[in-house]
């Protein structure tokens, strides 16, 4: 299905009615939250490390030009090459050209959100290169023709049964019937299929969780070990990532890894952390390329939402978001869902198309509280809301209501009269203290009743209440 950021309101409605999705979402976020909470509790210095991680990323953004140059110099010294891409199209061109130069027609890939962002697979397939996603979740959505719904669990919107069905269709096997060990069997089946792909691979494409300026290394984090099989079997390796992924040195990397693993999967350490500094030395004439994608990041550095560039893609904000938990990742219409997606998408794709996303929040603040790099997500969401109004992107009805409200709120006497009339009207509408259907905003009362106002206006109640008689 072709989803877009513009389509959020419709997509959210569809998601709410999708029973299978609702069932899948029901358990997902809760599990992530529990695991994270346990891991955080087990590390007394967690908050201190988050502060440090925040400082590190702030310093990186303040000195991005310096660190990028340092990183580039060191990659070259290690025998690798750095390529810069201003946008997705240029990044596609670079990667396609490198694959062709190395005569690679079979490519294995490890999970990378930036390659999703730049739609790399389409570009490779268009020139006849076979690309296989090797992270199990990514593999599942690749063969299903889907996009990821979560940045660390791309296929969590799908049930085991749907996956069994999919494997049977694509692998040409009989569908596995539900049983206690069906999940394990599915994992084994994918393992077998992907083994063939790994050992036939001529080139690896990976992402990078971090770029270490001091050593010119990229750090890749996985639990499956798929990135390592991708990297170690073929001669050539292309890593594609965003320019903001830098950390200055190894000590900083340590701090980032400590907060990332705990925030993402609730582990003290992800099973496999790999530092790649240069071409694969198992071979003669190997090559190693790093493609650094800008894609509006350099511009965002000067904007008020700049702090979003600290994001380390741990997924904690979406796991703690009630809106994400209700509508899932696909509703957001682009590769980055949830609260951070609602900030990134307007910046990377334009506010006019993504303007609904910053409104997809109750501003409960949970996302900002759990973010390991202290991105003030609710504040940034509010910033986009204000911008939407300022740039006159909000519909006329909404703008008129807001303007009317502002006019009223500045005139206490008229405001008081209107409120009193409102209270009276609501009381007339109610039965036994509850209103079944609110006029104009009936969405409010679709799933619950609205309580009728008791007593009068707040200011009147305040005046009457004890001790305020004389105020």
């Amino acid at each position: 299905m072709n989803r877009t950021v513009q389509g959020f309101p419709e997509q959210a409605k569809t998601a709410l009615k999708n029973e299978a999705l609702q069932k899948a979402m029901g358990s997902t976020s809760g599990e992530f939250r529990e695991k994270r909470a346990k891991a955080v509790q087990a590390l007394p210095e967690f908050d201190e490390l988050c502060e440090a991680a925040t400082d590190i990323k702030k310093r990186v953004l303040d000195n991005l030009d310096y660190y990028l140059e340092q990183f580039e110099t060191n990659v070259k010294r290690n025998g690798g090459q750095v390529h810069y891409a201003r946008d997705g199209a240029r990044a596609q061109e670079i990667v396609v050209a490198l694959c062709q130069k190395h005569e690679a027609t079979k490519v294995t890939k490890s999970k990378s959100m930036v390659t999703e962002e730049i739609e790399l697979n389409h570009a490779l397939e268009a020139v006849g290169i076979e690309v296989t996603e090797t992270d199990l979740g990514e593999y599942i959505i690749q063969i299903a023709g889907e996009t990821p719904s979560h940045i660390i669990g791309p296929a969590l919107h799908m049930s085991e049964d749907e996956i069994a069905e999919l494997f049977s269709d694509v692998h040409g096997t009989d569908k596995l019937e539900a049983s206690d060990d069906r999940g394990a069997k599915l994992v084994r089946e994918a393992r077998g299929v992907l083994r063939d792909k790994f050992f036939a691979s001529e080139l690896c494409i990976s992402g990078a969780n971090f770029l270490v300026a001091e050593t010119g290394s990229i750090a890749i984090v996985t639990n499956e070990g798929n990135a390592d099989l991708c990297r170690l079997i073929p001669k050539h390796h292309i890593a594609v990532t965003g320019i903001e992924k830098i950390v200055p040195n190894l000590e900083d990397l340590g701090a980032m890894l400590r907060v990332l693993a705990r925030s993402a999967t609730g582990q003290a350490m992800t099973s496999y952390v790999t530092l790649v500094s240069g071409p694969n030395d198992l071979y003669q004439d190997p090559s190693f390329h790093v493609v650094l994608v800008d894609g509006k990041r350099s511009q965002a550095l000067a904007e008020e939402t700049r702090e979003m560039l600290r994001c380390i893609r741990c997924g904690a904000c979406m796991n703690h978001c009630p809106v994400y938990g209700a509508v899932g990742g696909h509703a957001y219409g682009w590769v980055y869902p949830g609260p951070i997606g609602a900030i990134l998408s307007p910046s990377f794709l334009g506010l006019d198309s993504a303007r609904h996303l910053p409104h997809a929040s109750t501003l409960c603040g949970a996302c900002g509280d759990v973010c390991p790099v202290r991105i003030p997500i609710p504040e940034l969401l509010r910033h986009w809301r204000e911008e939407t109004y300022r740039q006159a992107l909000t519909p006329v009805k909404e703008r008129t209501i807001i303007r009317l409200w502002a006019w009223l709120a500045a005139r206490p006497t008229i405001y008081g009269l209107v409120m009193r009339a409102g209270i009276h009207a609501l009381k007339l509408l109610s039965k036994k203290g509850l209103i079944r259907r609110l006029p104009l905003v009936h969405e409010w009362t679709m799933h619950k009743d609205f309580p009728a106002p008791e007593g009068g206006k707040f200011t009147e109640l305040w005046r009457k209440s004890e001790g305020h008689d004389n105020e």
Partner: protein
Amino acid sequence: MNDDRALIFGKIRSSLNRLSGETLQPPPASAPPVPSIAIEEPGTLGDRFREGVIKAAGSFDQVEGWSLVPKAIAQFLRQHNLAPKVTTVPDERLTTLDWSGIEFNSGTGDRQVEVGVSIGFAGLAETGTVAQVSGPNSSPLLAFAPATNIMVLEKEDIVGGFEGLWKKLRNKYGSGAMAPTINLVTGPSRTGDIEQVLYLGAHGPIRYHVIIVGGQD
């Protein structure tokens, strides 16, 4: 492409309000806190490391010296009903041992290998992690392709945490330099991609076993 480099740097510099021709000074380095789980406390390193291995769904054994490694491996393979057949990294510490009773190979590893034996460069007490470096006597592939990953680690190479590892790397390769591939391995391969249920052995190893060389501490 070079245009893109110039363009991106230009935009970054303008976003950061850099003056034209400004030479960039190295920003001050930070010193992120070292959590207590990573401290270098010699008497506790072994215990903390072994505990980490178990927490990471791995297992361990400890032997007095290198010569006892093949026997320990044979025993592990028997316990798990695995054929007595291993491929080790091409490192003399392993290749010169007496492997009688086990079909022994050394090399970089391929699809057929079922049990890979590697040598750790360092162990991290913080998490039960074994770090492995690529090089002429090593092959990281042996820790990933086979279903069983056995890591042999000298007791002296166990450090507190990341910080100890970075120090060892800097001592070996010099400041700023690194081996082309460094793998930090903590447990077997795992996935939670199907309904968030944990399955071991998604791609690489189903078993992670560490043999510590150097007697009880």
